[in-house]
């Protein structure tokens, strides 16, 4: 996708909320910096150099950062799945459940934009064994699996074993083993999932 103000590749995709209406902006790095640095919030017609004042545009998905701040934010990665905020902004898809915790501050204005609300009021899970409602504890397994793989690659088997035990501990608390219903499990073979 091209920048809306020049022929360069657009790398910043900004969702702006203006008097209740959502507006999409696709800008190259220079124009994004100019846009985010100016006071009015309107994309400037000139080049990046005409933007001096660093008054952030409120409500942007960039959450009122200057381009430098946005660049730093973009490099921030999820501790569990490793997705960067930049990758999310480009693909529009998050990497794992922990992203909602890791990028909470950044996602909140976006969620408010889309839904006009930030609080879930619908159905909630009921859990046995006094487990919490939120599944953040279980989602840690994603990061532990990654660390375990890294440890194995480095031939640090002691460390890998520790990670594996930690994963098992968490999964034992959370994951009910599926009681295999014999008949169903058996005649599935032919057309079931991958072997």
């Amino acid at each position, binding site marked *: 996708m091209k920048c809306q103000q020049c022929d360069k590749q657009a790398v910043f995709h900004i969702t702006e909320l203006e008097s209740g209406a959502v507006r999409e902006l696709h800008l190259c790095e220079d124009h994004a910096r100019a846009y985010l640095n100016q006071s009015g919030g309107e994309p400037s017609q000139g080049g990046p150099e005409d933007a001096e004042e660093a008054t952030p545009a409120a409500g942007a998905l960039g959450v009122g950062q200057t381009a430098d701040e946005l660049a730093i934010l973009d490099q921030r990665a999820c501790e569990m799945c490793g997705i960067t905020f930049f990758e999310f902004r480009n693909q529009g898809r998050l990497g794992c459940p922990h992203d909602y915790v890791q990028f909470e501050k950044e996602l909140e204005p976006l969620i408010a934009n889309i839904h006009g609300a930030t609080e879930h009021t619908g*159905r909630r899970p009921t859990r046995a064994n006094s487990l919490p409602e939120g*599944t953040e504890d279980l*989602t840690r397994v994603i990061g532990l699996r990654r660390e375990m793989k890294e440890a194995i690659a480095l031939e640090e088997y002691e460390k890998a074993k520790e990670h594996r035990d930690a994963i098992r501990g*968490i999964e034992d608390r959370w994951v009910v083993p599926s009681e295999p219903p014999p008949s*169903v499990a058996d005649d599935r073979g032919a057309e*079931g999932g*991958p072997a």
Partner: protein
Amino acid sequence: MKLESLTQSIGEWLRGTGPESDIVMSSRVRLARNVAHYPFVSRASEQERADIERFLRERIASVPVGRGLEYIDVGHLEEIDRQFLVERQLISREHADAQGARSVAIDRMEQVSLMINEEDHLRIQCMHSGLDLRGAWEQIKVVDDQIEKLVPYAFHPRFGYLTACPTNVGTGIRVSVMLHLPALVITRQIDKVFRSLHKISLAVRGLYGEGSQAMGDFYQISNQTTLGRTEEELVEQVGDVVPVLIDYERRAREFLVRETQQNVHDQVSRAFGILRTAQTISAEETMQLLSRVRMGVMLGLIGDVKIADINSLLVRTQPAHLQKLRGMELDVNDRNIERARYLRQHFEGGDSGRASVN
């Protein structure tokens, strides 16, 4: 693979039996869910996708509602079979075109379908004929509750059920109705209606076919937001607007009959004539003409044609269905010829053969 048996049946949602089924084709509720201890699908490795698929399949198979389901390994299907499932609305186009381990579980009535590894780990869908959002919601709630007993769905105390795209977060629910609105299209009121729907944050989209060109007078209305309201409120939000749209469409139909009696009768008769005599016909034209005939049946201008037949033809004249029925691959030209042949045969033989233009 039991796809062949599906070609002989039609899904419950096509029966044209539910309330208001002259205008409301089907009611659907969909829930997006993810397992808490795996990355979302787009970030999951090949191995993780296979693990997720197995994890969910095993658990779904062991809950009561899961026992009667048929499992289809979408990842290993031929393209035409995936297309076939899309035409029946049992899987989404995205699910058909995706990569890696993925599957769908469907019930014999074709009311419930569970897509594994679509955009989210699990997409539960429940579809009923006619206007029955409440029934679809009550049914999907049972399915969701049973699965949640065995599957730790990713959940955030404030944001609710967590999804790969923030547009689905919270309830993860998408409530939709498929409406047949030919009279609003003919009287050019449809745009006005849609603009008013957007104002109350409902989404509208046309039904797309081959070549992704909008066709016919079939429209899907759905909720746009998923967070901040309860599932019941969102079901109501869509449900409340449907009677209004039904009323508009009915009035437009009455207007057409009253003010342009000859015209509308002529249009319907011509459409019926082409469907019964054409030697080659595209999917788009078929959809357009079936839409007119469907309206004609509802207005009593055509006798002896059942709505369920028209609904079924809308699906069975689509490319993959035609090829499955014929038992061979066909290119576009051959499909157009085969489609015309199938339509002629349908309207000449069987019960509908004596169909008459009143």
